């Protein structure tokens, strides 16, 4: 089965390159576009700490969404939090938990395991809204439906591997750890796994070309806040290093 393993190895090298360089390039693009006027939506915080706090609240608690619509907020935050846990859980396929930095990895395992259910449920609820609420149905394109379908299938195929067909994950781990040193190990011969991996790679590849750009967008759209945090007229690439250092020292 070495050829299938080689195929997935190639696919993941490609997908990783696309998502990393694609998203970095987008961020670079956004930053290099000027933002000549102060278009802060007010009331906006007036201090750096306040502004940083607002970004953090927006990113972690979805504060505006909460103000807007409790249902979307509930389903949205369920999905995103669950996804976070699931992603953290997946670290164990790539890292060595005896290394101190990754010591937390074993502890998220039980949470991540059940979070996958919450993730699929959250997604299903979001998808139901696209059919049931006429306003949302009106604004949905086929791609909006497919994106949810893709995520749900990723979740379900993952759950199948865990709770139904029991893929041998040590082999999977060897495969991915091997990729790090360009050593292509064999993947277990397992259909749910192939499906899961193909879908994840697909998601990674379309990331920089789709509305998944809301991930960097949620930081960058609040440009006025950045002006408060970083000072006026921040332009990358010139100010990049300084700004990031300042931001880091402001937030942490």
């Amino acid at each position, binding site marked *: 089965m070495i050829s299938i393993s080689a195929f997935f190895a190639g696919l993941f090298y490609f997908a990783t390159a696309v998502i990393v360089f694609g998203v970095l390039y987008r961020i670079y693009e956004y930053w290099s576009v000027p933002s000549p006027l102060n278009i802060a939506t007010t009331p906006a915080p007036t201090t750096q700490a306040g502004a940083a706090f607002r970004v953090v609240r927006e990113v972690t608690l979805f504060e505006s969404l909460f*103000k807007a619509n409790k249902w979307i907020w509930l389903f949205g935050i369920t999905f995103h939090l669950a996804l976070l846990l699931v992603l953290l859980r997946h670290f164990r396929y790539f890292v060595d938990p005896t290394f101190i930095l990754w010591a937390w990895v074993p502890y998220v395992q039980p949470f991540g395991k059940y979070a996958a259910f919450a993730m699929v449920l959250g997604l299903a609820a979001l998808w139901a809204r696209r059919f049931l609420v006429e306003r949302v149905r009106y604004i949905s394109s086929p791609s909006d439906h497919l994106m949810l379908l893709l995520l749900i299938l990723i979740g379900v195929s993952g759950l199948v591997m865990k709770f139904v067909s029991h893929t041998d994950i040590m082999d999977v781990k060897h495969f991915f750890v091997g990729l790090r040193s360009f050593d292509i190990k064999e993947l277990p011969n397992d259909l749910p796994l192939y499906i899961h991996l193909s879908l994840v790679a697909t998601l990674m590849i379309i990331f920089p070309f789709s509305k998944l750009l809301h991930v960097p967008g949620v930081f960058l759209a609040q440009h006025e806040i950045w002006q408060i945090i970083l000072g006026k007229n921040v332009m990358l690439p010139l100010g990049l290093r300084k700004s990031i250092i300042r931001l880091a020292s402001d937030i942490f």
Partner: protein
Amino acid sequence: MTDLEKQVSEDQDVEDVEEQLELPDPLEIPAIVVDAMVDLHSFEAAPAHQTDLGFPGELVDDWQERAIAKIGDLRKKYRSFRVYLDSCVKCGACTDKCHYFLGSADPKNMPVARQDLLRSVYRRYYTIPGKIAPWLVGARDLTEEVLGEWYNYFHQCSQCRRCSVYCPYGIDTAEISMAAREIMDDVGKGQKYCNEIIAKLHKVGNNLGMPPKALEATLADFEEELEDDFGIEIKMPLDVEGADILLITPSADFFADPHIEGLMGYAKVFHNAGVSWTMSSYASEAANFGMFIGSYDNMRKVSRRIRKAAKDLKVKRIVFGECGHAWRVGYAFLNTLAGPWDFLDQNYPIPQHICEFTFDEIEKGAITFDKSRNDDKVMTFHDSCNVARATRMGSNPGGQFDYPRALLKASCNHFHDMPEDTIGEATVCCGGGAGILTDDLMDIRVKGAAPRMKALRQVTEEEGVTHMAAICAICKSQFTKILPKYDFDMEAIQSVHQIVSNAIVLEGATVPEDD
């Protein structure tokens, strides 16, 4: 009447009463009615008004290529435009936040759908999925029909930013509307109302096209009126070199009600404070319609008049009168557009809002009020959207909500706010902002005002509110027209400084009989 009939009629009575008590929710969400407003088309600008602003006189032959190129241009010019177009996830959180949607039920008036009118074209020409599989991502060719939709629906947006408050990414449909109008102007399809007004301002100095002589005469009339009423001389100075304060106020303050009473209120406050102040005939307009059409150049040109006036008159401070979007340009853009203001007195905000000025006077204890002069009124306050969501007053976040209310509460005994979800940062627009205040758009003006009118209805019924004050010239004009359509008295709309004016006690002044 049989017992049964009696019973039925009694039940009905009870039901009727209940129905009357059951006031409509101001933010009630309608079921969508596709294309309800698709035909509402405001007059297009005449060639002369287009060329006055540096735009082609009429729709150019290669409008399609030009419009597409302009989208490409804008995405390199404004980060907001680019990030907003890419980031929307179609979550639907904004779909019920636009007063025009709530009032008209047309789904294209939902903020995200309004953005999509332009986003669909952007996707078609500037994104890989849109180029490969337009049907998949809702991308569309730029056809004549699409251009028509742009024109109609981007002129059903008052750029009030209510949607941006609720979007998880802060996507501001107002920015998209401005961009769309800029693109349309650029291909020769501008709107008559906005462009005619901007052309007048460039020529004469104000939106009305009121020449300096007429302005001088008008102000002299006001001074006379004030003297007749109060028996003292209250100045309305124009073009006084060396005055301390330059007042920049919307030209509606010179000719419309209740704006004029507001202007008289500022004059009384200045008089009471004993400051020297002046208006300028060269910059006799606070409003800046250049913002409405998204034209940086026009907006800048309009703003530079204020700079020139301030320099020529050698003033030390600039104070803005009651005007919503003018304060936005003043507060948020003026420094970029017309700064630096190093020649002004740095001890005061540059520029300062008239409400801030009056507030400071009240804080100092420099104003005496006789609140009872407003006892015939129970007041409420309409937060003008541009003030609420794009500016501030004082140094605390949210000062823009507190200052005008503090002024009202200082000058009247009875004040009640409208429902929480229709004021402050959640305020619903008057329905007339950003180039909508024209008779050819009356249909959407009336519909867009519905949430505000329902909110006002609630406090009139429940709290006995009789009057609503505002600090935006457009709001005031809009409400004067719209209130009667919702069975309110047209004089129910007041200027904040009109209420201040009624109550302020000036030394040596007599109180007019009818007050």
